[in-house]
């Protein structure tokens, strides 16, 4: 098995973290803004649907835990960012389909 650490693989792993309320993964919800790899350190920039999201702490912890389990990862840094503010336009087509929401 090829265990090379790539941003594509990190994005794939992040699709396993689901929002508990909507059941849509955080990538399709548009919560992940950026993934960068510096050596064995993975940096994830993410947001929440609102600053008062009650599951925010769990989502950040979930991102950290999921990426931390990946082979070749020594450190995970998750940054919570509020600019640009999350809007429903950030949902992917797959996310919209799961919510039965049309543009």
């Amino acid at each position, binding site marked *: 098995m090829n265990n090379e650490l790539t941003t594509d693989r990190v994005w794939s792993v992040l699709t396993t973290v689901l929002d508990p309320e909507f059941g849509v993964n955080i990538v399709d919800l548009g919560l992940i803004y950026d993934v960068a790899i510096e050596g064995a350190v993975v940096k994830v920039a993410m947001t929440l649907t609102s600053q008062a999201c009650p599951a925010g702490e769990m989502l950040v912890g979930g991102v950290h835990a999921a990426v931390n389990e990946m082979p070749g990862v020594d450190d995970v840094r998750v*940054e919570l960012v509020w600019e640009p503010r999350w809007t429903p336009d950030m949902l992917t087509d797959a996310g919209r389909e799961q919510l039965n929401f049309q543009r």
Partner: protein
Amino acid sequence: MNAVQPVATKSIPTSPPPASPLAAGASVPLAFIGAGMAGAVLGTVCLVRSPAVLALPHVHPQVVAWTHLWLLGCLLTVCAGAIYQLLPVLANTGFRGQRLAWVHFAVHLAGVAAMVAAFEASDMKWVGIGGLAVSVGVVLMAHHVVKMLREATRMDPVLAAFGLATAWLLLTVMIGVLLAGNLHFGWWNVDVLAVLRAHAHMGVAGFFVTLIQGAMFRLVPMFTMGQAGALRRVGWAIAVAQGALIVAAVSLGFELAAGRLIAVLLFAIAFGLTALELRRVWRTRKKQHAEPGIRGFLVGLGWFVIALVGGGALAFGAGDWRSALAYGVIAVLGGVLMSVEGFLCKIVPFLVWMRVYGPRMGRQVTPQAATLGNARAEAGWVWVHASAVALLGVGAAIGNEALLIAGAGAFALGQGLLFASLLKSASHLWRPVEGQPLARRIFEVKA
């Protein structure tokens, strides 16, 4: 992109940090909600055993005892749990002071038990003692609320509604204790019925309606992925409702007929503004399917509208004591109970999920919060409960025992369906689903 808050590194603790929004790992709100639902079970058993009590005058000791069982034993207990859970999240302060919250829990339950039993026995001394215990609990909760509001990063009308609701609750329990003391010691010569009406409206409309009116503008968008209400319009709706409450409390307490009509008019304007803004929020929702809990909440709002029409008729002098009792049944069991239980269908699974599956997130496959309960049972609850309120309301209004018996049966069935779903959610606390490890699974799939 403006990075503002580094929140996690390799050494992230697995347990929640001290300023976690989860009140004692969700155990404080879950304990309050569980105790409140136990109160609802007791209230339902009482109703099924003696539905004809709803054909008695609303000042009858048993009616007063039941009213306090539902309002304090069930609804206030549940709402206190919801406040301990929601306010730290909305105010972005985290929850501290679990010990005081547990003291509140203990004195509240002891006080409510004493009050309800004493009302049944018409023992005003013990009503006052129980009321004092409940008041101590309310003061402790108010201390939390004020602290969180002062620490809030920014104030908005929704947060203000939590503060205003708590202020109305404080006023309600203080007047209640003074009334009980006055009935026992005979301090003042006051029109007890008039003060009782003011006390009831301050409690039901002042606390519960203010709380529901504020919280809905955060909870409905949160659960439907809609846009939050425009703060200015929400603020106006809450402000007009507060004006109505003040006018209602004064005019009911001092028997001012013109004031009651003004209060009804102001309430109607406040309801209209609230409905308009809620409709705007609803139209922005991205989750198209309305879950039973949200539907139940909306039906509860419909009962509030019917109660307002009934209250208006009573303010114009129409109806008799039976109509007043029906008005109370519709406002409490229809409006407040249905709105609160509708939100419980969403809040309980979410709290259980946060406590049981939140720490496993990113490590294991975890179920969706909405799947923890039983959606079919909740959907059944919505319509069975709504039918039960209609039967009980009409039965109380015309004093028809057959309708009251049928209504009590339907009410018990509706509560049974709701409890079945909430218990299914709660069962994950002691019997969680063990999910497959996530990262390992994804690499197995890729290999």
